[in-house]
């Protein structure tokens, strides 16, 4: 562990705003993330198609069309900066040469636009985590991990600015926990398994970044908390469970920063607000303008302290105006313009608070993203360095915060949610406060065919 966090990065919650942070990150070409302005982060992906050796020319031509469309729009609308995220699809990670080739196409086109129009942009390279393709997953070796390393190294050599991933350590047992709203198993996945994998993984990614002149970006607990959010949105599981899932991904996320990552953290990681409060690193976020990728109850509040503002992902499909990635780009640019104009007029804090107030009383998942709540949770987390205790205490505190907000009638939740406040509390009460004891219990409870404890060193 290269870093330890024992206190928050801010002395006052008023200072935590969008577009700037205590520890901004600067790319090779001088784009500063978290240095005062919020920039769009655009992500785009293929329409439904097979990816094979034979279709690769078509794949490349679609990416070519997408990046040109996006950069042309950014130029036309005079946006001062841009981040593009390239998230590989599983086939591209399995065949690292494909992912690397697409990345190079994007990176080179972006450099062309910078040379021609002075358009400053950076690329985030996000190989998808294919380690879970083995079931149970093999986390620290094997062909899948090797393919991921090749992808990171190859793209970093070609000029990738930020290395990122949505890593999946612990997800193999959390998937079933989610549909059961089983907080006990989720605490095991997020408090015991995930931080161990994250520490190992981000040490490795940060080494690759350092060796190749790239920046070690950040992770996202997408497969945990966002899956919960989407299922809650569909009415499948309680929103209060999803809200707690959000906050308890933070100790996991911290493991990246403790082991070399410096940000910007990933767009879909809404736990980023706690991360920013604790570490002061720049973060990416997404909300209403990512509705093309997923719906959410946090469309505005998610922008409140963001340094990059993203559309998450959109396919190259044609809408009435033009291709969807260009549509996203235009929308993100206008969102950022409004926020940056507020900053130029000295109104960042006011705009932040309006974004927060917009959503925070309407859903527990929005309520826990309030900056003041983030401070409260952050302070609890830095009290200890033990990821398991951090996770357990965060769960308890979050439940407490939600209960109080409901009692104060500040937060309205559905009838069928109320019941779950008690169910979740009793789930938490049964977790021992000693990790070793908890791990011993869970090793008996969890289906051992689903995961390899040894891959987590437990």
């Amino acid at each position, binding site marked *: 562990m290269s870093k330890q966090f024992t206190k928050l990065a801010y002395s006052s919650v008023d200072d935590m705003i969008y577009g700037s942070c205590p520890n901004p990150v600067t790319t090779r070409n001088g784009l500063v993330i978290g240095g005062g302005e919020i920039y769009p982060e655009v992500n785009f*992906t*293929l*329409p*439904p*198609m*097979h*990816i094979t050796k034979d279709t690769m020319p078509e794949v490349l031509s679609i990416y070519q069309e997408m990046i040109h469309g996006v950069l042309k729009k950014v130029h036309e609308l005079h946006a001062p900066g841009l981040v593009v995220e390239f998230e590989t*699809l*599983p*086939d591209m990670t399995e065949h690292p040469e494909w992912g690397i080739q697409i990345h190079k196409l994007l990176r080179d086109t972006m450099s062309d636009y910078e040379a021609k129009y002075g358009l400053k942009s950076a690329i985030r390279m996000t190989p998808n985590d294919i380690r*879970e*393709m083995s*079931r149970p997953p093999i986390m620290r070796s094997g062909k899948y991990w090797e393919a991921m390393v090749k992808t990171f190294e190859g793209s970093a050599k070609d000029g990738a600015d930020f290395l990122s991933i949505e890593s999946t350590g612990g997800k193999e047992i959390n*998937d*079933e926990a*989610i*549909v*059961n*709203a*089983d907080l006990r198993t989720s605490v095991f996945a997020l408090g015991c398994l995930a931080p161990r994998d994250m520490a190992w993984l981000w040490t490795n990614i940060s080494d690759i970044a350092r060796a190749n002149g790239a920046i070690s970006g950040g992770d996202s607990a997408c497969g945990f908390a966002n*899956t919960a959010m989407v*299922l809650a949105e*569909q*009415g*499948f*599981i*309680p929103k209060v469970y999803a809200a707690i899932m959000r906050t308890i991904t933070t100790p996991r996320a911290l493991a990246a920063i403790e082991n070399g990552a410096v940000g910007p953290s990933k767009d879909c990681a809404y736990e980023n607000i706690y991360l920013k409060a604790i570490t002061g690193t720049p973060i990416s976020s997404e909300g209403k303008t990512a509705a093309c990728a997923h719906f959410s109850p946090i469309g505005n509040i998610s922008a409140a302290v963001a340094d990059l503002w993203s559309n998450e992902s959109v*396919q190259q499909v044609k809408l009435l105006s033009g291709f969807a990635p260009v549509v996203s780009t235009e929308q993100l640019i206008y969102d950022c313009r409004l926020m940056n104009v507020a900053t130029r007029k000295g109104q960042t804090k006011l705009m932040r608070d309006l974004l927060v107030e917009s959503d925070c009383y309407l859903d527990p998942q929005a309520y826990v993203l309030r900056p003041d709540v983030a401070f409260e949770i952050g302070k609890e987390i830095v009290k200890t360095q033990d990821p398991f205790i951090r996770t357990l205490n965060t769960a308890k505190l979050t439940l407490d915060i939600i209960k109080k907000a409901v009692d104060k009638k500040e937060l309205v939740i*559905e009838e*069928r949610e109320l019941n*779950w406040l008690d169910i979740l509390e009793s789930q938490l009460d049964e977790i021992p406060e000693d990790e070793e004891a908890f791990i011993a219990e869970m090793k008996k409870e969890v289906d051992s065919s689903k995961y390899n404890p040894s891959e987590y060193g437990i």
Partner: protein
Amino acid sequence: MDFEELSLAVQKGKAKQVRELVNQGVEEGISIEKILNEGLIDSMAVVGENFKQNKIYVPEMLVAARAMSAGLSILEPLLTATGVKPIGKIVIGTVRGDLHDIGKNLVAMMMKGMGATVYDLGIDVPDVAFVEKAEEVGADIVCISALLTTTMPAIGDVITEFEKAGVRNKYHIMVGGAPVNQAFADSIGANKYTSNAADAAEVAKAYLESKYSN
């Protein structure tokens, strides 16, 4: 045995109590078919209805389904013995290359809840495995799911596999998953597309009822 008591036990997910009540009913000589239909399946239908009306969540439904299964496991050998058929056989799985099972599991669970026998092939299922399992068990319905836009085309490949084996028309093929839509389902010649788990179970039930009423 009190049918109302059994229904409440299923709804609340009390597996032990369900087992006891079913055993009691069998001992009392209540017809196996009646315990199955009016006891277990009807109770699970109440659970499904409560879910549809936003009164409960999936976890509550899962607990109920497990309780129902506990009762069913007592009845099953007796059903075979008395020649009562389950409402239908369903093979389900996530296509090759796709590791997502949350949606598929929900569909499988709801289909079990409505009384069907469900054969869950899991995730990352080779195309031909769908055909083999369907042929082996004499399935009525095959459900194929994909969560990624990149794995969605594999649904079409599975259907092609059924065609190659010359058994396409023996099965009602249902497809689903986030990227799937009606146009895609039509383009690959699926029999049915549904956009969510609850609809999938309902549509499957309606199909089986109409199939076996003829």
